[in-house]
């Protein structure tokens, strides 16, 4: 929902509600009493509401302080995951880590890569013929609106059968995150400018494949980018 429209609509709604209440109260004789709207019930509603708020305050401060999602204030500069991948220096770049690693024994010859269209794979030919395909899924800290969701990113699945390397996305998933901002009544006086959203990777991860010298991969295949030697 639109972030400006929604609060606006809500305020209009409350205005209408107050206007309706007002016209009822302004009518001579005052607030209409019905079977429900008795002094006792009105007080009950108010009291119950107050108690619920007080309880929620008690509950809030007794919630476990562990297990929360990543911080919004990680002090990383924007990491150029793409650049690091292009130069093959993912492992050496600070702030980048491997979320998943796979290793397959593979002799020599042609390697066929089957992948889902939206997956992009960086490939690098190794200097040696060690007979191993090494696949890594690399991430940098990733956030949206200042909320770090690196932990929630799932690795794709990588499988080798015969001469075919299959890369599949983790099944389509959704991440719902919540963040809290201080009320304007607090931020007006706490002096702090509203938090800057710190930079993060623009990609939700990079799949990097290192293959032995004696293995060939069809380089005309789109979606596979080769790291320049």
């Amino acid at each position, binding site marked *: 929902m639109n972030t400006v429209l929604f609060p606006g609509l809500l305020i209009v709604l409350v205005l209408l509600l107050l206007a309706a209440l007002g016209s009822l109260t302004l009518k001579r004789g005052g607030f209409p009493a019905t079977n429900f709207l008795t002094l006792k019930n*009105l007080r009950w509603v*108010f009291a119950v509401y107050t108690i619920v708020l007080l309880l929620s305050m008690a509950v809030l401060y007794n919630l476990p302080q562990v297990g929360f999602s990543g*911080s919004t204030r990680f002090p990383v500069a924007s990491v150029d995951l793409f650049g690091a991948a292009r130069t093959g220096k993912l492992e050496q770049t600070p702030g980048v880590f491997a979320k998943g690693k796979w290793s397959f024994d593979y002799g020599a010859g042609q390697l066929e890569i089957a992948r889902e269209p939206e997956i992009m794979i960086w490939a690098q030919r190794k200097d040696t013929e060690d007979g191993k395909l090494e696949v890594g899924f690399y991430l940098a800290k990733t956030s949206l609106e200042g909320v770090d969701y690196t932990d929630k990113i799932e690795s794709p699945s990588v499988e080798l059968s015969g001469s075919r390397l299959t890369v599949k996305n983790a099944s389509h998933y959704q*991440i719902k995150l919540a*963040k*809290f901002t201080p009320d304007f009544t607090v931020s007006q006086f706490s002096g702090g400018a509203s938090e800057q959203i710190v930079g993060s990777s623009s990609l939700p991860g990079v799949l990097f494949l290192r293959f032995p010298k004696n293995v060939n991969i069809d380089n005309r295949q789109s979606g596979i980018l080769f790291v320049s030697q």
Partner: protein
Amino acid sequence: MSLSETSLFQVAKRQYLYKFKACSPLLFALAVVQVLTILTAQGGTSSASTGGSGITVSVYSYSSNLVIANTILWAFFAGFICTTQTTKSIDFAYVSNRLSSNISSIGFLLTAGIAGGVLATLSGTLIRVMVFFKLGSKNIAPENFFVPPQDLLLGCLAAILYITLSSSIGYFVGTLIQVSKAFIVLLPLFLVLAMRLSLGTLIDAVTKENSLLLFAIKVLAISVLLVWSSALLSNRLEVRR
């Protein structure tokens, strides 16, 4: 029969206590407005999403800003209601004069405003607990989740001051309209005119004040001025019944 003596203070006190019965619909309205706002705001006041490679990420942002804003609206309305003939004639059913009626109304509005400010600020804790049980801690950014108690206190104070200001504006507007119905038309005109002139500066002086002390002084000064003018204006009004 010998005449009984009463003091202004005594009468105003009785009226003040009576108001909590007679005007309890206003307190009810406060609870309804806040609950409705919490329920509708519970889905998050703003959200952002990003998609790609099989994932959709949404971030919902929560605060009690809307609850506080709607409580400020309620306060204006409550101040206004307290000046209407209906409310005044409720005062004048029993022992009263205009001053005692004003004092008791202001006392009521202040008390209700304090309740409103505290509840609006506490609504933040309810929203947090609700989100906690809905999304689980692993999906919640820890910043600002555990509001420091001193922030809660600061929020209460500032909300109460905003609400006080709003209800005194409502009280003043209501009194003007009681003095003459012409103000129903004149007030919006004045407002437009004031916007053209320097109302913006005045609003900024309040909403952009970073010192709580100065903010309190400004808000209280304006409120006292408004309420005092209302009391002067209404002191000559007749009671229709």
